[in-house]
């Protein structure tokens, strides 16, 4: 069977004159409503008789719940009801987790045992949020504290207190992949090195917390949901957890999401809120407050220890890598362990490394759960890869840029299959790195650094490159769980041309800042040769819309873009047929000319857009016999180069398209305080054909800002009692205008051969490269002190200690 997909680009280049709108500056259509204050966020949704939720959470890192007295809370005027974990666990199915972990169940409220400080235990529903909080204070929970384990390596050891008593070990997944002849390559190598790295727990922390409004309609037995969600299979998981038919769940995706970057996956919030609505027969709104979000929102990101060995030659060419990673998942692993799976698809970065041993350990501790964070686990992995390349350079005494050049996969090598089985589609890494070098003016930076050092200052230059896989599929599910044979990860778009000839498209996702309406209208405008600003794009609800997997995995330019192209081309084919019939020609003898159709030889009249529209909608007698009336088409696209299960040794085609970037950074460290400031931040970036330059640039800049946060500022810190002590924005430090420097960027376009326009993904690369680039610069600055940093974030305390 042939999988149908729109034909890829042929010789697409940035300068290609055939593009009217693609690659051109164009304002995002979404922005108007936002600057007018007319966005519609989930927290803005209101309904008659709306009630509100407050949460009682566990003060203990690990405790048995002996009893809950809700009588005082229930007696408070304005309180509609109180639900405990016991009730919720009995009445709903466990939330979906992706590893095969018998005995490890996750519910929105803790049942018999609370497993981290901040875990939700009781929910209160009241007429307003303040009253709900008053009542929450009146709930009396009796706890019996249990031993807690906070350190992941201690949690792995024999005799550790179990986080889940029904699971024999805190290790929830442990597998070693070997791709290629690692032992032989290590045995033959002139040099080896080993290093330990630590990526501390942080997340992308959107300014909007998770918000959800759920309304159960007893008349129709339907659940309506408005939520700030960015998550594949959200309606499905709601239906499953609540035990209701999927066609009884209607998720409204015409909700603006106030930032996500992966983390807006409030399935537990949503199941809870939906349950409360059904239980108390009122619409219920739950907007996490910032403390509930930070402590109990289960939105922390990867928390990893890496042990890395590299085998390389005196020439700095790396032959083989051994990477062991331990990920501290917190109490409920959910989907987060798969964040060690996605890096399999770029496990050698941009380098021609012949073999890899990759050992992954997912361990639970008494901390909040993790969720997907920008890059889905690859930011920490790339951090380690790039710092290891710096170590290789230092070991052989070769410039760090040169070591990268020597190891790069070369332009002529594509498509290139890395040891773990993923084929990279295209790229030109040496050229992009060269552009970054020139933009940053590396020679001038070296002079600046050396001059600063000569004057007793501490300065350094950093470099990092990064493969950014885009397109997304869920194949890491099958990779990490043999019981999961998911291989499909489609995206759909429906396009209609109405009786007035105007074009509208339906997409089945909510957007969290990615400007999907702008994307789809640009692509359709290009296909139809009409002004994109005249095209309306709406976010269908989950019952009306086509299959969608949400805007994860830097996939929408690739997937939604090409699904839109596919639907447009189906419509154009139908219209061509209508016009050909009207001209008395065969469709194969007619062509599109602007917005009309004419004979392929260019002679004769043009059948106009409006004439074709009128035939399709009004004058059935002019329609080719047997053709359906109207102008509508849909296209559901399966991910390019996907659909296959992993091999038994874990080789897998992860994402289809590989973007690339190279960052050059110069920093100065205050010798007296350890504070880092930026002297220069420059990068070259290649995400294939650029559809909207401002949007691409914005994605990269935003990712860099997140990366600076992860590199220098942001960390969820637990104290020895398992209390999160960075739960406000005064302590969890996100970069402001002062901490994010001006960034210079140059674009390079190596089109993907797999996509219609040559486009690739762009959402995550900035975040994947920046921590490595910044710490690389810090390490260069620290080199005169004979010391280095191997963790993130690198704090002033860390740096001052090393400059002693």
């Amino acid at each position, binding site marked *: 069977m042939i999988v149908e997909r729109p034909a890829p680009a042929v010789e697409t280049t940035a300068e290609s004159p055939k593009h009217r709108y693609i690659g051109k500056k164009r304002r995002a259509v979404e922005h108007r409503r936002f*600057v007018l*204050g007319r966005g519609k966020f989930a927290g803005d949704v209101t309904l008659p008789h709306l009630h509100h939720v407050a949460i009682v959470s566990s003060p203990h890192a690990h405790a048995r719940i002996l009893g809950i007295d809700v009588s005082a809370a229930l007696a408070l005027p304005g309180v509609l009801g109180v639900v405990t974990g016991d009730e919720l666990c009995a009445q709903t199915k466990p939330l979906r987790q992706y590893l095969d972990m018998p005995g490890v169940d996750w519910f929105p409220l803790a049942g018999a045992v609370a497993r981290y400080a901040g875990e939700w235990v009781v929910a209160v529903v009241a007429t307003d949020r303040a009253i709900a909080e008053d009542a929450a204070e009146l709930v009396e929970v009796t706890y019996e504290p249990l031993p807690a384990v906070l350190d992941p390596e201690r949690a792995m050891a024999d005799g550790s207190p179990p986080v889940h008593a029904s699971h024999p070990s805190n290790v929830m997944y442990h597998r070693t992949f070997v791709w290629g002849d690692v032992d032989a390559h290590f045995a033959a190598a002139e040099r080896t090195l080993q290093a330990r790295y630590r990526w501390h727990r942080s997340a992308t922390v959107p300014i*909007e917390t998770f918000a959800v409004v759920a309304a159960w309609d007893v008349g129709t037995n339907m659940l309506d949901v408005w939520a700030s969600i960015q998550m594949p299979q959200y309606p499905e998981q709601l239906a499953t957890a609540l035990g209701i038919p999927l066609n009884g769940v209607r998720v409204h995706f015409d909700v*603006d999401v106030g930032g996500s970057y992966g983390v807006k996956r409030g399935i537990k919030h949503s199941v809870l809120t939906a349950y409360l609505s059904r239980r108390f027969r009122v619409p219920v709104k739950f907007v996490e407050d910032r403390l509930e979000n930070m402590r109990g929102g289960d939105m922390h990101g990867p928390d990893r220890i890496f042990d890395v060995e590299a085998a390389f030659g005196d020439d700095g060419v790396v032959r083989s890598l051994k990477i062991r990673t331990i990920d501290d998942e917190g109490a409920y692993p959910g989907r987060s362990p798969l964040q060690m799976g996605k890096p399999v698809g770029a496990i050698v970065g941009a380098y021609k490394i012949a073999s890899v041993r990759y050992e992954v350990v997912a361990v639970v501790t008494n901390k909040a759960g993790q969720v997907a964070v920008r890059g889905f686990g690859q930011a920490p992995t790339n951090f380690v890869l790039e710092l290891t390349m710096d170590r290789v350079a230092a070991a052989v005494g070769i410039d760090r840029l040169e070591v990268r050049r020597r190891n790069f996969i070369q332009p002529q090598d594509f498509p290139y299959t890395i040891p773990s089985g993923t084929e990279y589609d295209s790229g030109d890494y040496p050229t992009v790195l060269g552009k970054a070098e020139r933009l940053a003016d590396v020679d001038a930076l070296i002079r600046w650094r050396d001059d600063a050092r000569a004057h007793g200052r501490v300065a350094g230059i950093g470099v990092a490159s990064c493969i950014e896989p885009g397109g997304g599929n869920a194949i890491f599910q099958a990779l990490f769980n043999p019981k999961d044979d998911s291989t499909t990860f489609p995206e759909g778009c429906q396009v209609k041309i109405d009786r007035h000839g105007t074009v509208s498209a339906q997409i089945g996702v909510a957007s969290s*800042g990615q400007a999907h309406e702008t994307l789809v209208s640009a692509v359709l405008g290009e296909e139809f040769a009409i002004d994109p600003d005249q095209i309306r794009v709406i976010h269908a609800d989950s019952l009306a819309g086509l299959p969608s997997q949400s805007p994860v995995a830097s996939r929408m330019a690739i997937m939604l873009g090409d699904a839109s192209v596919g639907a447009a081309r189906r419509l154009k084919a139908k219209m061509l047929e209508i016009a050909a019939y009207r001209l008395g020609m065969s469709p194969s003898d007619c062509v599109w000319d602007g917005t009309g159709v004419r004979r392929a030889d260019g002679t004769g009249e043009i059948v106009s857009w409006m004439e074709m529209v009128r035939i399709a909608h009004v004058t059935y007698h002019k329609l080719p016999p047997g053709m359906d009336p109207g102008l509508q088409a849909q296209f559901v696209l399966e991910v390019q180069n996907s659909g296959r299960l992993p091999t038994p040794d874990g080789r897998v085609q992860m994402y289809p398209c590989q973007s690339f970037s190279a960052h050059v950074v110069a920093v100065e460290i205050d010798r007296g305080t350890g504070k880092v400031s930026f002297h220069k931040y420059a990068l070259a970036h290649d995400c294939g054909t650029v559809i909207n330059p401002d949007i691409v*640039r*914005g994605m990269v800049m935003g990712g860099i800002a997140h990366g600076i946060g992860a590199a220098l500022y942001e960390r969820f810190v637990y104290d020895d009692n398992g209390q999160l002590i960075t739960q406000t*924005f005064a302590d969890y430090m996100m970069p402001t*205008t002062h901490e994010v420097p001006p960034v210079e960027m140059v674009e390079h376009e190596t089109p993907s051969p797999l996509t219609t326009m040559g486009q690739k993904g762009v959402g995550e690369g900035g975040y994947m490269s920046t921590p490595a680039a910044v710490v690389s610069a810090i390490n260069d600055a620290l080199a005169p002190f004979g010391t280095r940093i191997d963790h993130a974030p690198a704090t002033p305390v860390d740096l001052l200690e090393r400059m002693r």
Partner: protein
Amino acid sequence: MNDYAISVIVNGVTYERRIPPRRSLVDFLRDDLALTGTHVGCEHGICGACTVMLDGVPIRSCIVYAVQADGASITTVEGLSPDGSTLTPLQDAFVECHGLQCGFCTPGMLIAATALLREKPDPSADEIRDELGGNICRCTGYQQIVEAVQLAARTGGTR
């Protein structure tokens, strides 16, 4: 506690309401007046998403209580554009420069930047960064926001 009667002018319209004293100004604007353009990000005065003008001065409306605004005049993002649909030069510049992505911090940014441009019609990039230092954006990395404010300064400030 007893509700408290207040009268406030918001975006030129006088509203009289009875509210509990503990209601924050932002909750009042959003829940009592249905002016949902002002957003709640942290409720502890750090992120700046709730920035509004109170008697012409940008403040954080999550740590001002609505009773305190009795008799005051407030401007929210909905009131920047005189007719609610024609963009001000600043709003237009944010759109033009892609100075936003998800739009959640944007109302606070616009209020803060409007105040800046009233005071300094031609601010430097550093002055813009200073003024907006209390408004956290997680999408943009700030660069296109700074560019938008600079463009607005060139195209007409807050007119």
